[in-house]
């Protein structure tokens, strides 16, 4: 019990008595985590934009006369990669045609009876599923014709894969660079206390007793750093969303609140973990080196 008390007191002592170094470490952590958060938000929005465009990709299936469009729609909806299926009645199709023709809409009356068939508008989760869906639809006996933008789907599919990879690389690089910067900042802070650690080892302090205050300090600075970075990011992101809404309305940023809360919680967790792990690695390495007899 006594040891815990001393460890917490020493943690507080480390933070307050060396406040200059603590502030420097904190500023570095805030900056690094802010940049990590920023790059992650960029990557996530890139994915979001691509998937939005993918979501708008529609496959149209025209049915043969006498087919049950509702039953077929229900069947297609059960496919895992299908996002939505909409049944288009011949009347609705005709209305759309009229709307499309504009001034020439009267020409439609020349058709007499509505010749348009029942149809389905199908949206998929990802562009890469389009070709698979089309293959299946064409094979159905009730389907007369399938219309889709084949080249666009292929391009979107490639862009989607590329965006996923680019986002993963950005986030991975961000995490690696953050770890290295925080690790080295803590290591520099540790070197200023090297004499103290050596003396503690010589008088019989255990590794755990020596390392714990440094690890708790790292955890504390990582948490505060991530909290500050989160605050700055949240404010900056809200501002960017509003500005883009007014200036570039076609650029729609991620605005899913539960998702953004999860993102900020993950960044907070990352800060805590980085602070804890980097200080643990730094202090363990230092103690092992100092404890190794010549």
């Amino acid at each position, binding site marked *: *019990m006594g040891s815990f008390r001393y460890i917490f007191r020493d943690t507080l002592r480390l933070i307050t*008595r060396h406040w200059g170094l603590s502030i420097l470490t904190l500023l570095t952590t805030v900056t690094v985590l802010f940049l990590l958060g920023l790059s992650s938000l960029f990557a996530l929005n890139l994915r979001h934009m691509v998937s939005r465009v993918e979501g708008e990709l529609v496959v149209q299936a025209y049915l043969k006369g006498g087919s049950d469009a509702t039953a077929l729609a229900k069947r297609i909806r059960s496919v895992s990669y299908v996002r939505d299926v909409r049944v288009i009645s011949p009347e609705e199709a005709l209305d759309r045609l009229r709307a499309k023709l504009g001034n020439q809409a009267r020409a439609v009356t020349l058709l007499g009876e509505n010749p348009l068939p029942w149809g389905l508008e199908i949206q998929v989760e990802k562009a890469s599923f389009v070709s698979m869906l089309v293959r299946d639809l064409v094979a159905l006996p009730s389907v007369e014709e399938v219309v889709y933008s084949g080249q666009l789907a292929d391009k979107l599919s490639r862009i989607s894969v590329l965006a996923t990879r680019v986002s993963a690389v950005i986030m991975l690089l961000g995490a690696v660079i953050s770890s290295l910067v925080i690790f080295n900042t803590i290591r520099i802070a540790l070197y200023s206390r090297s004499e103290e650690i050596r003396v503690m080892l010589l008088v*019989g302090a255990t590794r755990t007793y020596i390392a714990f205050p440094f690890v708790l300090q790292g955890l504390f600075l990582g948490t505060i750093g991530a909290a500050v970075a989160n605050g700055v990011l949240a404010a900056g992101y809200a501002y960017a969303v509003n500005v883009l809404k007014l200036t570039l309305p076609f650029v729609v940023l991620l605005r899913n609140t539960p998702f953004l809360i999860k993102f900020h919680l993950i960044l907070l967790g990352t800060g805590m973990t980085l602070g804890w792990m980097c200080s643990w690695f730094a202090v363990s390495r230092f103690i092992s080196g100092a404890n190794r007899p010549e």
Partner: protein
Amino acid sequence: MEIRLAGITKVFSPEIVALEDIFLTVEKGEFVYLIGTTGSGKTTLLRLITREIVPTRGQISVGNRNLRKIRSSELPYYRRNLGVVFQDFKLLNDLTVFENVAFVIEAMGVPPRIVQTRVNEVIDLVGLWRRRFLKPMQLSGGERQRVAIARAMANSPSIFLADEPTGNLDLHTSEEIIRLLLSINAAGTTVVVATHDQYLVDAYRQRVVELHDGRLKRDEKRGRYVIDGEL
């Protein structure tokens, strides 16, 4: 606790022989002066006992423990048997006198109430009661030396090692410190003092072990300070 060195050789690269073929036994409760010129191997010998360094050849044991076989996880517990006064004091400048002495026993997980009592006791013993809330930089050399002694005494060690504990101190302070070490020894603690202080060795006669160029040159009960080339 007994200290036993059997055929100890310590070579620092590149081929600097700090100690060569040393056989030495310090019995439990003994007081030993370790003398010799600078570079004779006194500090190396003390660092072998604290296990900061390991011998190149030979065996060193303290109590029944072979220091070569000691695991790093056991090292803190071994070192708690030792009280060490370093040549450069190694006090922590941002801690007060009280805190400098206290952290040795705090590291052992001793409850705060007992720490308080013990630290006050040793600080009083070394005569620094009035200065217990000052930091090392606010103390004189002699006072810092006494803080280092108090810190080494705090955990009631079985072996007390002091490297030049009277270096750069005036005669009066040096005598006070040696008397303090003798009183620690009188309580049953084994004391090994590496020193250059001829006056003290001759005034407070004890066993004298002389090292010369890393070799054991002389080992005398109640010896005098005589070193080739110095007198």
